[in-house]
């Protein structure tokens, strides 16, 4: 089955300069009861985004009309904690195609890659440059190219390359799927079972 394709984007970005954002903040456990993959975007950052009466909190960035775009830029150790893939679904469902941070938790990174949501890990310094650029101009454009593995602040031309597993890169660019790949080697799996 084909997965969501990611090749290249140029977009404005939403800044969230908080460190150690855990997946319980991205999508609290009480919203994990759905049995489909749809609709999690409504509850993305639920408790930071809405008050107890479900009214938007004006001081939260997703409720600030000045900021928008397809890229979420966040502080280091993004996505730590629970393995809930619902976190990647929520970010993607809300409309983000990539998350930029100076450090990602492992399980979140894997979940994101499995859902066509690109985690872009940059240096602390470059992350700060992106935050500064966004705060200086809310509409500043960020360019991310997966094929050539770079992220650029368009206005200044400053850019940095980023790492991505070559297999997952091929999957995202071509929409390949892990299960299809393993099933193509099913004879090896059965052979392994037979001889161990």
């Amino acid at each position, binding site marked *: *089955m084909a997965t969501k394709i990611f090749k290249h984007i140029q977009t404005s970005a939403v800044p969230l*300069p*908080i*460190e*150690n954002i*855990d997946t*319980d*903040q991205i999508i*609290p*456990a*009480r919203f*994990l*009861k*759905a*049995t*489909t*993959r749809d609709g999690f975007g409504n509850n993305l950052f639920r*408790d930071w985004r809405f008050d*107890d009466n479900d009214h938007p909190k004006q001081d939260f960035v997703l409720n600030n009309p000045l900021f928008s775009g397809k890229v979420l830029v966040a*502080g*280091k*150790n993004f996505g*730590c*904690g*629970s*393995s*809930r*893939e*619902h976190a*990647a679904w929520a970010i993607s469902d809300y409309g983000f195609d990539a998350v930029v941070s100076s*450090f990602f*938790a*492992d*399980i979140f990174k*894997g*979940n994101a890659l*499995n*859902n066509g949501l690109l985690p872009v890990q940059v240096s*602390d310094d470059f992350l*700060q440059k992106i935050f500064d650029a966004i705060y200086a101009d809310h509409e500043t454009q960020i360019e991310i190219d997966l094929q050539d593995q770079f992220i650029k602040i368009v206005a200044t031309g400053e850019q940095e390359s980023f790492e991505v*597993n*070559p*297999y997952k890169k091929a999957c995202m660019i071509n929409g390949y799927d*892990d*299960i299809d*790949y*393993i*099933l193509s*080697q*099913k004879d*090896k*799996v059965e052979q*392994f*079972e037979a001889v*161990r």
Partner: protein
Amino acid sequence: MGQTLFDKIWDAHVVSSAEGFPDILYIDTHFIHEVTSPQAFDGLRARGLPVFRPKQTVATADHNVPTWDQHLPIKEELSRYQVDMLTKNCAEFGIELYGLGHPFQGIVHVIGPELGVTRPGCTYVCGDSHTSTHGAFGAIAFGIGTSQVEQVLATQCLLQSRPKRMKIEVNGKLQNGVGAKDIILYIISKISAAGGTGYAVEYAGDTIRSLSMEGRMTICNMSIEMGARCGLIAPDETTINYVKGREFAPKGEEWDKAVAYWQTLYSDEDAEFDSVLRFNAEDIEPMITYGTNPGMGIGVTQHVPETTSFDVKEQGSYKKALDYMGLHDDEQLLGKPIDYVFIGSCTNSRIEDLRQVADFVKGKHKADGVTVWVVPGSKQVQEQAIREGLDKIFDAAGFPLREPGCSACLGMNEDKIPAGKYCVSTSNRNFEGRQGPNSRTFLASPLTAAASAITGKVTDIREFLKEEELV
């Protein structure tokens, strides 16, 4: 060059390894539960695939279940629906389910070990980050996302790149009142909530070796709280004695063969690790967390750090955490009034945890104004506790023994800590809202939690133990 324990197990499970691709790793047992599996089963249906090895898949309902009046239908509609979906999916795909009412039901990371499903040298996955628990047996155990749950259901394999290897050694004698939970909270406070990211962590040293299997599970359980891919401890006599005779443990000749293999599972003397850390057991106090990630922990007598002690870039996040917790710079938690005590979760809900708490609270009573929940990790733990009369000790102390489930660890079922309230919790996460919207969590050991329930405030268990020695 010698091999690490991790590499020995990994290599024995590689189905295929190709340049530029992650390894295809064979998974011996796949644990599933109601929250992270429904979309995976839908995926199988969409692909027209069966579960490849249903006999190697074990299911239970734990996250959504109530821990009181469990024989009644689940009140919350969405929770009930999710549990019903698991029942339906297991029936359709031929998977054994230890659902509500089954004598083997319980928290997935408690039942695997107690049933003898978790064994040395094997690979385990589950759509739950605390799957690292099973590594306590000298096994490789990963938490995975739902796409990977689907992958393992479809193929009994996981695509995975080999992580780096870290060894954490703890040596020396623990102070009285200090246990496995304090060790792991101490380690995480030293290396941070991201300090293990990218690593498989092997715990070693004489202090780790002296721990029971329950204690080792507590340590490995929280490996994910430092970001580690998994945690593991080489099997020894303690491991073998624990597994022996359990429901699904090998028997007879199979057992002898298994034990002979398990005895080869250790890191060779000259094995190389990418990182080695050493800690002294004597330095570890009873630990408590003050912030909103498990790395924000201190010895119970210490003070909350000053904001200015952090890098300028980190100060905003630090202040946000203290504001959430209602704490200020340099505050001492010792003596801070608390509202709730939760003893349970996949970190600390095993029979040994309950015995330790019962032994301590016998003849004591909880403070007025504190609500205490003791939630056994499984039906078997609950029944064992009742057989040993622990329930009566708990009742007399005002610590009602509830029914098994994840309970107040994650604010998904009925057991939630109310907004603004402080809970001393034996669980594994103190994230904002983890135990319920705006709840405030102090993570600690079962003994610290029990002592705090008795006094109604954050308490140094060592003071209690000293007094008891004098009596």
